[in-house]
Every structure is written in structure tokens, then in C-alpha cells.
């Protein structure tokens, strides 16, 4: 199990060094009530519940991405995303997340990196996953996982 990157830390992983198929993790993350409740309705209007809403999945992915890259890639821009759900995720559970680079391509002046993720519950069952397509930074830019 890897140690987590510092919250807020940004990374600068060169596109050229990304290996397609290389897996990262598993990383353990908690799905606590504060996280789940904050994403149940409009962000900023916490609402209690017992099952994690789907919006938790992109957050768990970002946390795993941060840990796999030593920080969120500085200057990265989110172009697209896919999410699938396989099993309800109870609040106050712990999940393990694996990520891997599924594809990388260059189109004109942009570099696109597809990162896939899988989330499993404490019993090892797949609860969901998906992909993120990220416009990869070319250097130290002021962007974000937009």
C-alpha cells in the first residue's frame, strides 16, 4: 500500500514517462459521512444519508490520482470522464482504489491521457470505476483538473 501525497500538493509528471498499462495502488480511502453528505444534493448543501451518492466516485478517483502521481498534475485539464456503478457503497465504509494509464495520444498541440480506475469495497467486490481523459500539461502551467 502506498503512502498518500500531501493534500494540495501538485506534481509534474512528464507525458513521456507515463507507461500505458502500469497500475498504481491499491490505495485505501474512507467514504465518511462528511464526504458523502456534501455531494448528495447541491455541493454546499450537506444532506444526510446512508449510501454514497455517485458524485463520490470522481472524488475518490482524484484522491487516488493524487496519490499515484505524487500530487494532482499541475496544469492538467479534464476533457471527459466515464463512471460506472456496480454495487451500492455504504457510508462509513473503506474502499481500495487502483488506477492505471489506459491510453495516451497526441492530437495537434494537445496531449490526452486516459486514466482508468476501479473501486472495491472492504469485501473486495467491485463497486464501480471509470476513466478520466485529461489534457496533460506540457510543463509548469497554472491549470488544473478542470
Amino acid at each position, binding site marked *: 500500500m502506498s503512502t498518500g501525497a500531501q493534500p494540495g500538493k501538485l506534481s509534474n509528471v512528464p507525458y513521456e514517462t507515463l507507461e500505458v498499462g502500469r497500475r498504481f495502488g491499491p490505495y485505501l480511502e474512507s467514504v465518511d459521512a462528511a464526504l458523502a453528505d456534501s455531494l448528495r444534493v447541491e455541493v454546499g448543501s450537506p444532506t444526510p444519508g446512508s*449510501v454514497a451518492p455517485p458524485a463520490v466516485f470522481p472524488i475518490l478517483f482524484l*484522491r487516488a490520482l493524487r496519490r499515484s502521481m505524487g500530487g494532482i498534475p499541475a496544469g492538467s485539464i479534464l*476533457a*471527459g*470522464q466515464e463512471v460506472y456503478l456496480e454495487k451500492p457503497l455504504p457510508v462509513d465504509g473503506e474502499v481500495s482504489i487502483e488506477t492505471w494509464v489506459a491510453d495516451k495520444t497526441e492530437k495537434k498541440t494537445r496531449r490526452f491521457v486516459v486514466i482508468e480506475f476501479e473501486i472495491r469495497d472492504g469485501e473486495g467486490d467491485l463497486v464501480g470505476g471509470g476513466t478520466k481523459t485529461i489534457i496533460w500539461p506540457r510543463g509548469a502551467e*497554472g*491549470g488544473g*483538473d478542470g
Partner: protein
Amino acid sequence: MAEQLPEAKQRISQALIDAYAELSGDHNPIHVDPEVAARSEFGGTIAHGPMALQPFIVAATTLLAAETLPSGSRFRIRYMSPMRPGDEVGCRLAERDGDVLVAECVKQDGTVVARVDATIPGAGARLEGAS
């Protein structure tokens, strides 16, 4: 009357962007540093992409009267335009074929910020029952 998803909105403010950065750990300057973001191609801070998806998720769970979406649900999002502090994003149904939905997340000025292609088991019957 045309089928529509239940109403759901997401306000965008710098405070909410900062809160999302805390939740996700994504503190990229384009989201949280107005001075750096002003020098970027966007000319100011923008919200994290998944915040555009929030109205769709809330509308879909409201439609199903459930806390989450059923197993077998999947959605693909294409981000098309940034959201900035002061924006408000809603969601509208563009197309439907059974449980396969196409939705658009739209800002107050009509700009589509994200397009969502989704398969949600049970959504078609709910929409038929509501229209």
C-alpha cells in the same frame, strides 16, 4: 408535454470551488488561485469539471427517488465549456431511448458546459410515468 428530468441546480462560487478542492485534494491554481488563473487561457478561476455533473446526478437520483443510482448505471461526460464563480448550472434532457439518456448541463446563459450520455436502469419507466 416533453419529458424532463427533475429540476436540479448547482451554484458556482469561489467558496464552493475551494470546498471541492478540499474534498478532492485538487488545489490546482486554475481553481483556487485567482491571480495565477487570471494569467491562464481561462482568464480567471474555473470550477472543477465534476461540479458540472452534479445537477445531472441529483436529477437522476431524484427521478428514481433513491440515494444513489442502481447497479449497471453508467455515464460518459464530455466537458465543453468552463464554469466560473457566479454561474449557475442546471440540467435538461436532450434525448431518450428507453433507459439511455442524453442530457446537457447548461449555464444560466444557455451555454452547454457538459454533455452526458447515460444508461440508468429504470429511468425510462420513471420518465414515462412522470410525463
